[in-house]
């Protein structure tokens, strides 16, 4: 199993009454009213420090997300942090992957720049880049970046094709897209990995995204939020493996990754004492404090998809208050406790979801950097070694990991221009 350290870049000092004073942690939350610039500096510095700390502790990769105009993740472009981490890990000779889980292509208005930045990162890191191309959350793609919701997925498809062509075509080519046009595409540098870095897509449950990942042999990252996350994830992975069978795609677990918040302490009780308030911060002041209309905008989801989603929502209305630490731990939305508890839960999950990749989120909400390091320490020494051997029978065919780090070359399906589209 490959275990990646992932975290947001949150502002960790929002006031306690944030939820009652402000509608949301994105788009409208007032910056100058809420922020001390010195603390922003400190938080960004801490986030990179913690990622380096995790890299030194032996994680297989360090990952970055992308969310614009948000206080729960001050990370408008993951390539920025990835550049710093690529260089620092080179300097220290750390053999870890640089995983930009979020470089949203439904959002990007400069797809050629994405191709260039990612190729540059791959060269700088010596072929350690893993490229994640999610669609982008509605508030980010449609509100922050101003893309009409009904065009998000079409833009994704076009940008995806351009980037894969820009990486792999030997000769300069003109690109006449609907959303961007370039008379001569010939980026310098091209990626170091051949044919190109492994590519993944992130889904939140839309079956079209899952199907696209299988048809194009892309890595598939699943992110789901809320108390019901484990049940939802189980259903989505079950559907994924059923779909793989229907499409006659192999069931190699390495194609699947799940983002999981994990907090470890000496005992279960100690975990609650140390982490509860920071997890609850994330729920009431962070990613948990985003209204539903920021995740789904008219036009972004087809009528058929709407019917399915709204049908579910109407039969199971969502809770109006933020869940507590205990509720999250009880449901498994947050895996928390002693090393033994956490090991067991993560191993069970790896098998029941059939995932070969874990995206372990170890910094949550307002967790200060010392506590984050403590969590990384315990996880990397007491948990990580016990997860490594899971799915080892598939290690020789991990096409979703850089060759330099033990992976196999990616499938030619990833860059196949005649291949399936996201739609």
């Amino acid at each position, binding site marked *: 199993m490959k275990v990646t350290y992932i975290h947001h870049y949150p502002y960790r000092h929002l006031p306690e009454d944030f939820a009652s004073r402000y509608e949301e942690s994105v788009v409208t939350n007032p910056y100058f009213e809420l922020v001390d610039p010195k603390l922003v500096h400190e938080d960004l510095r801490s986030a990179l420090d913690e990622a380096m700390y995790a890299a030194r502790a032996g994680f297989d990769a360090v990952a970055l997300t992308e969310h614009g105009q948000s206080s729960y993740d001050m990370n408008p472009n993951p390539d920025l942090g990835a550049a710093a981490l690529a260089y620092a890990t080179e300097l220290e000779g750390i053999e870890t992957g640089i995983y930009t889980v979020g470089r949203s292509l439904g959002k990007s208005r400069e797809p050629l720049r994405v191709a260039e930045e990612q190729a540059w990162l791959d060269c700088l890191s010596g072929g350690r880049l893993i490229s994640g191309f999610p669609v982008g959350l509605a508030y980010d793609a*449609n*509100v922050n970046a*101003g*893309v*009409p*919701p*009904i*065009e998000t997925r*079409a833009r994704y498809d076009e940008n995806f094709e351009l980037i894969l062509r820009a990486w792999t075509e030997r000769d300069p080519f003109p690109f006449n897209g*609907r959303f961007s046009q370039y008379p001569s595409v010939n980026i310098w540098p091209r990626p170091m990995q051949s044919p190109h870095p492994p590519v993944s897509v992130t889904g939140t449950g839309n079956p079209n995204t899952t199907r696209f990942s299988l048809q194009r042999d892309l890595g598939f990252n699943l992110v789901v939020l809320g108390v019901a996350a484990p049940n939802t994830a189980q259903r989505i992975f079950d559907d994924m493996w059923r779909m793989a069978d229907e499409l006659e795609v192999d069931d190699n677990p390495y194609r699947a990754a799940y983002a999981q918040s994990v907090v470890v302490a000496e005992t279960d009780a100690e975990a609650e004492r140390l982490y509860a308030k920071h997890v609850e911060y994330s729920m009431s002041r962070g990613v948990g404090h985003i*209204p*539903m*209309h920021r995740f789904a*905008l*008219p*036009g*972004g989801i*087809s*009528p058929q998809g*709407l*019917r399915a989603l*709204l*049908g579910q929502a*109407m039969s199971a209305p969502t809770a109006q208050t933020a869940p507590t630490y205990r509720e999250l731990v009880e449901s498994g939305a947050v895996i928390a406790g002693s090393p033994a508890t956490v090991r067991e839960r993560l191993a069970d999950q790896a098998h029941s979801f059939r995932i070969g990749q874990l995206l372990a989120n170890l910094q949550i909400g307002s967790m200060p950097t010392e506590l984050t390091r403590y969590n990384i320490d315990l996880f990397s020494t007491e948990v990580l070694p016990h997860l490594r051997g899971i799915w080892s029978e598939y290690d020789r065919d991990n096409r979703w990991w850089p060759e330099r780090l033990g992976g196999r070359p990616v499938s030619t399906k990833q860059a196949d221009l005649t291949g399936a589209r996201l739609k």
Partner: protein
Amino acid sequence: MTTTSPNQAPAGEQVVATWNNRIRLRFEIRGSGPALVYLHPAGGLFWDEFLTRLTQHYTVYAPVFPGISPDDTFAIHQLDDIFDVVLAYEQALRSLGLENVPVVGQSFGGMLAAELSACFPKLFSKVALLDPAGLWNQEHPWSLEFISGPPERLPALLFKDPTAEGPRAMFPPPSGPEEALDQAVTGIWTLGCMAKFLWPIPDRGLAKRLHRIIAPTLIMWGEDDQLIPAAYAQEFGRLIPHSRVELVPDCGHIPQVEATDHTYTTVTDFLADGYATSPAPRAQSERV
């Protein structure tokens, strides 16, 4: 392609192939008398009291925007921008013989009526714009919150008094869960289709084109419009040569619903000819 003389068109509906057969534009047709084109707002087509009263004197042709009919949702993907829409509509109207006829457009439909008149100045004999979209400037910013915001805020954005009878009739309670789901799916997708031509700032350069409108134009605006500020009424008036501005007191974004009598009377008087319009006094009108 079916061609029918507008004066003989039966009540009901007619589907017109347009845009090189990529769009089948459905017209709902009601009433009797001379033809009138009605272009609906971003929420879709509702035969409210204003429209129903118009059908007593006119044959109202109301095209339903491509993509929002539940049986043809993919049609929206055939139209990339507002000029595709204008060309597809013009061709459809022409094929029905609907030329030199009056048009009434509400909000998004008002923007579309203005675009059509600016691009094809002889298409419409008279133009009535009710709180039209299409202009935007920094002094009076307005947003697409009616699409991007929480749905429960919608009534207050649309109406001065959302509790009045007319506004409440716009949001009828569903008869059961099935209908609630149908309403939600259709409502959300409709806004999504229309958003394509408004997003993210509802300005496609109409201000540059309004001077081309030669038809007499009536601009009506709810004084208390919370969605598109009434300041834009004067701006439309300033930019359209033969135009007149009528502000509607105690009224929000949809005068035809919130001030039905006033709107009906003003629009039908305007359409009934003899209605003097003159170039707006440019020197006196301030730029909004």
